[in-house]
C-alpha cells in the first residue's frame, strides 16, 4: 500500500504555461492571482495513490502484465524494451478539487482557469514524487520515464482495466466513466518500467501527441507534462 504523499507547492511558471501565458509575459497581477489560486487549490487537495508491481512479457501486440492483461501497441512496447518488470500506479487529487474549479467557473473564469492549471501542475508534482518513491523501492534499477494511456498509441480504453488491477475505486476512490475518462478529473494512471540494466536515455516529447497542432502549452513555450 502506498505511503502518504503531500504536495506543498506547485511551480507557478509551469502553471502560467499551462494557462497559455509565457511566464515572462505575466504581469504582477496575474502572477499574484495564480499564487493565490495555488494556495486555495493545495488546501482542497487530498492526494491518494496506489500501485502494484507486475512482471512483463513482451509480445507481438504489446506488453503483457502478469495478471494476463495486454497493454497494446508498439509505442509502449518500444518504451519498455529492456524492462522485465513495471510498477503500475494511479494517483488522484480527489473530488473536492473538481468542486472547487466548478465553483470558480461560476464566479470568475480567470480564477477557474488558474485553479484548473494549478491542479494539473499538482498532479504532475504528485506523480514526480510517486516516481521517486517507487524508484527508491527498486535500488540499483533503471527507469524510463512514466508512460500513461493516451501517450503514443496506448489507448485510453485500458484505463478501466488498469484501475481494476489496482483496485483503485475502493482504495483511492478513482473510477472511469463510460468514455474511459478518469473521475475525479485531476488524476493519472501510469506505467513505470523497471530495468536491471542501464537504459538509453529517452525524453518525453510532443511528437505523437494527438493534441500537438492546436496545443496552447506549446504556444506558451512549454508542454503539458501529461
Amino acid at each position: 500500500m502506498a505511503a502518504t504523499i503531500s504536495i506543498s507547492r506547485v511551480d507557478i511558471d509551469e502553471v502560467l504555461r499551462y494557462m497559455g501565458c509565457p511566464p515572462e509575459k505575466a504581469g504582477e497581477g496575474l502572477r499574484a492571482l495564480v499564487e493565490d489560486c495555488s494556495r486555495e487549490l493545495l488546501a482542497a487537495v487530498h492526494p491518494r495513490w496506489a500501485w502494484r508491481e507486475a512482471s512483463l512479457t513482451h509480445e507481438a501486440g504489446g506488453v503483457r502484465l502478469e495478471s494476463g492483461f495486454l497493454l497494446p501497441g508498439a509505442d509502449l512496447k518500444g518504451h519498455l524494451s529492456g524492462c522485465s518488470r513495471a510498477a503500475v500506479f494511479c494517483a488522484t487529487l480527489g473530488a473536492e478539487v473538481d468542486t472547487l474549479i466548478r465553483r470558480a467557473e461560476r464566479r470568475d473564469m480567470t480564477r477557474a482557469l488558474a485553479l484548473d492549471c494549478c491542479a494539473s501542475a499538482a498532479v504532475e508534482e504528485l506523480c514526480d514524487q510517486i516516481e521517486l518513491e517507487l524508484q527508491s523501492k527498486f535500488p540499483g534499477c533503471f527507469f524510463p520515464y512514466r508512460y500513461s494511456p493516451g501517450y503514443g498509441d496506448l489507448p485510453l480504453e485500458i484505463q478501466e482495466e488498469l484501475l481494476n488491477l489496482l483496485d483503485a475505486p475502493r482504495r483511492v476512490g478513482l473510477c472511469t466513466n463510460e468514455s474511459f475518462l478518469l473521475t475525479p478529473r485531476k488524476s493519472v494512471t501510469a506505467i513505470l518500467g523497471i530495468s536491471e540494466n542501464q537504459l538509453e536515455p529517452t525524453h518525453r516529447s510532443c511528437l505523437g501527441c494527438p493534441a500537438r497542432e492546436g496545443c496552447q502549452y506549446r504556444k506558451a513555450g512549454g508542454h503539458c507534462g501529461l
Partner: protein
Amino acid sequence: MDFEALLRGEAPVILDGGMGTMLQAKGLKLGEYPEVAALEHPDWVKDIHRSYVEAGAQILCANTFGANREKLRRTGKTVEEVIPASIALAKEAAADRALVALDIGPTGQLLEPTGSLEFETAVDIFAQEVRAAVKAGADLVMIETMTDLQECRAALLAVKENSDLPVMVSLTYEERGRTFLGHSPAAAALTLEGMGADVIGVNCSLGPREMPPLVEELRRWTTLPISIKPNAGLPDPAGAGYDITPQEFACAMAELTELGVKCYGGCCGTTPEYIALLKKALDGRTIQPYERKTIPAAVCGPNTVVPIDRVRVIGERINPTGKKLMKEALRRGDVDFMLGQALEQTEAGADILDVNVGLPEIDEGEMMVRVVKALQGVTDAPLQMDSTRPEVLEKALRVYCGKAIVNSVNGDKETMEAIFPLVKKYGAAVVGLTLDKEGIPKSTKARMDIARRILDTALSYGIRREDVYIDCLTLTVSAEQEGAAQTLEALRLVHSELGLKTVLGVSNISFGLPARPLINQNFLTMAMTCGLDLPIINPNMEEMMAAVRSYHLLMNLDREAREFIAAYGGATISTSITATGGKQAAAPMGGERSLGQIVEAGLRGEAGECTRKLLESTDPMAIVDDVLIPALDKVGADFEAGRVFLPQLIQSAGAAQAAFEVIRQTMPAQPEGTEKAPIVLATVKGDIHDIGKNIVKVLLENYGYPVVDLGKDVEPEEVVRAAEQYRAPLVGLSALMTTTLHSMEQTITLLRKANLPCKVVVGGAVLTADYAKQIGADFYAKDAKQSVDVARQVIG
C-alpha cells in the same frame, strides 16, 4: 432467526469477515472478478461462508459486492445468473444458522457531478440487483463500502422501492473522518435514517482503532443501531496485508461496546479466525439499548450539516417572482444564472438556499432537477425546495443528496396528504404554513390551531417532530397594520408552547412603504427575539445580515464575538439608513481610466462602477458599440498576434461581462419574440472536461451573443432538441479527449439528419481542422477567440 429479533436483543450481532482476501487465498488471481466465483468456484465460496458461520457469524454477506450489470459487463455474466447462485451458496452454508444478505457495493463509476453516471441510472442498476435477490430469498440487504452518499441514496431507494427487506447501510471513511468524496458521517446519518435505513455504519478503509471518532459522530446524529466492519488494521506500508493480529482486532472491537455499537464484523484482511476471536471477546457483553435521545433539528448536504441551533438564514433570491433577469434565464434554460445567485448568497452569509423555479411557460419539474443537481455541484449549502406542485417537489427531493426542506404544506388536508408522504419517503424537513382553505386566520389562536393540526398530521406519517418548521406568515404592514404584532405573537407561541422550529419570510412586511430596509431589519430583530429560527431573506442586504450577526452576538451565540469581529472589525458601519433611491457616492476612479482601458486591462472590479457612471451621460447601446466591443476587439487582435495570452483575454472578458451586467439591468426588456436567437453550446456525451467550453461561453456573451449552455456530457438528442427549440443559428461542440470525438461526430450526424438550418463549430484539444471537416463540422475554432470570429461570420 430474524433480523428484527437480532437487533432487539441485548447481545451484540456478529457479522462475517472479508471475502476477497479469502478467495485470493483459495486461488483467485489478481484482476479477476470475484463475483464470478459463485459460478466458477462454488465450492470455494461455500467453504468460506461455512467457516464464517462456524466462527459465529449471524449474518453472512453473499458474494455479490460487485454483482451489478456495470461491473459484470466485462465478465460476460448477468446479474440474474450471479446473484441467485451467490445467495443460494450462502444460504446452503448458513443452513438456518445465519441470515443471508444481498451485499451491494458501488457501481464502480462515479455519479454526477464528479462522474457522469446519472442518479436514476444508478437507482436502476441497484434495483436489478435487489429484484434478483428478493427472488433468490435474501433475508436482508447490506449496502456497503460506499464513498458517495448519493450512490448510497440510490441503492437505498432501490431497496425500498423493490422490496420489503431490512437494510443496513455502511460508508467507508478516511482517517480525516470523511469519505473520498468529502462526505461526512453526520450527513450520512441524517440522510439515511430519514430515508428509512434500519442500521447504519462504517466499513473498510480503517482498522478498529480508528473507529471511535466515526462511531461517536454517527451516534450524535442517529437513533439507529450502528454497525462496524473495519479492516484488519491499517494497510501495511511495506507491502500487502494489514497491521493488526486477530487477537488485537478482537480486543479493539470489544472496547467499542462502550460506544453502543450493535453489529460487529470485519472487512478486508479479516478471516474466520478474526471473527471467531471477535465472538469470544464479545461473549457475555450486552449492548446498552442506547438512550433514545432526540436528534437535534438539522438539515444537510453531503458535506455540510446545518443544525438549527441558532438563527440560520435561508436565502430567498433563487425565485423568479418579480425578477426579470431570472425569468429570462429560466426561459433560456441558463442554469448558470441560478448558480451565480447561489454563490452570491452563500458568500453573503446564507446557510440554506430556497429554490423556486416556477414559471408557467417552462417545465418546472425538469428545470428543478437541473437546478438542484447543478447547485449541489457548486455549493455545500442545504436546499429548500419551493414549489406548489407535489410532483415537482418529488423530483427535487429524489435527486437531492442530503436532508432538504420542503416549502411547503399548510393546514389543508389535501395538501398534507399529497406532500407528507414525500417528506417521509425522502427524509426531508417541512415548512407548515399557518393557513388553510379559509385563508390566513387573523387570531393568534387560530394560527396555533393550524400549527397543531399540521404537527399532528406530520407525526401520524412518521415524520419527526424536529423536522416540522412552522411559518406564521408575514402580512404587509401597510395593508394590515395590526398583522405584524399578531404574527410575532403566533411565532412566540409556536416556539414556546409547541417547541417547534419557526420559519418566516420577512421582506413582505414593508411592501408599499418607504425605507423598506429599515422596517425589514427591525421586524427581523423583533421576530428573532420571539424565537424565529429560519428567516427567509435576501442575505445580500447588508442590514439583514447585520441584524442576524448582532442578534447572535447579543444572545451569546457568537462566542467571544468572533464572527461579529470577523465581519465588522475595522469597518465603518453607517448607522443611518437613507431613503431608498438615495444615491451612493460613486467610488473615485483612480487616475480616471476610461471604460475601454479598464476592459483592456481586465479590471473586473472597476468595470461595473465605471459603466454606471458612464450611463448617466451615454446611451447604453453606444457604450456597447463604441466602447466595449472595440475594446474586446483590440484584446482579441492582440491575443491573435501573441501580444496577450489566454488569461488576459479571459480577464478582459470578465471585465466586459461586469459592464454588460450593469447595462442589461438598465435596458428595457426586449419585447417577446424579438430577442436574438441564441447559440447552443455543449461538451459532448461522455466528456466531462468543460472549462474550454465555459471560456467560449463567456467570450460569446461579451460580444452580445445570447448563449444556451447545455453543460457537459450532453446527449446528442439533447443538442438537437435545443437547436430546434431555440432555432439556433450556430451550435458549438467541445470534446477534449480522443475517446469522445465519436460522440461529437454522432451529434453532428444527428443535427444534419434533423435537417436543421444551423451551422456547427467544433473545438477542443485533440481536434484539428482536417478532423473537423471529416466529421462534418462547418467550422473549426482553434481557440475561444476564433469561436467569436465564427459567430460573427455566421450571425453577424
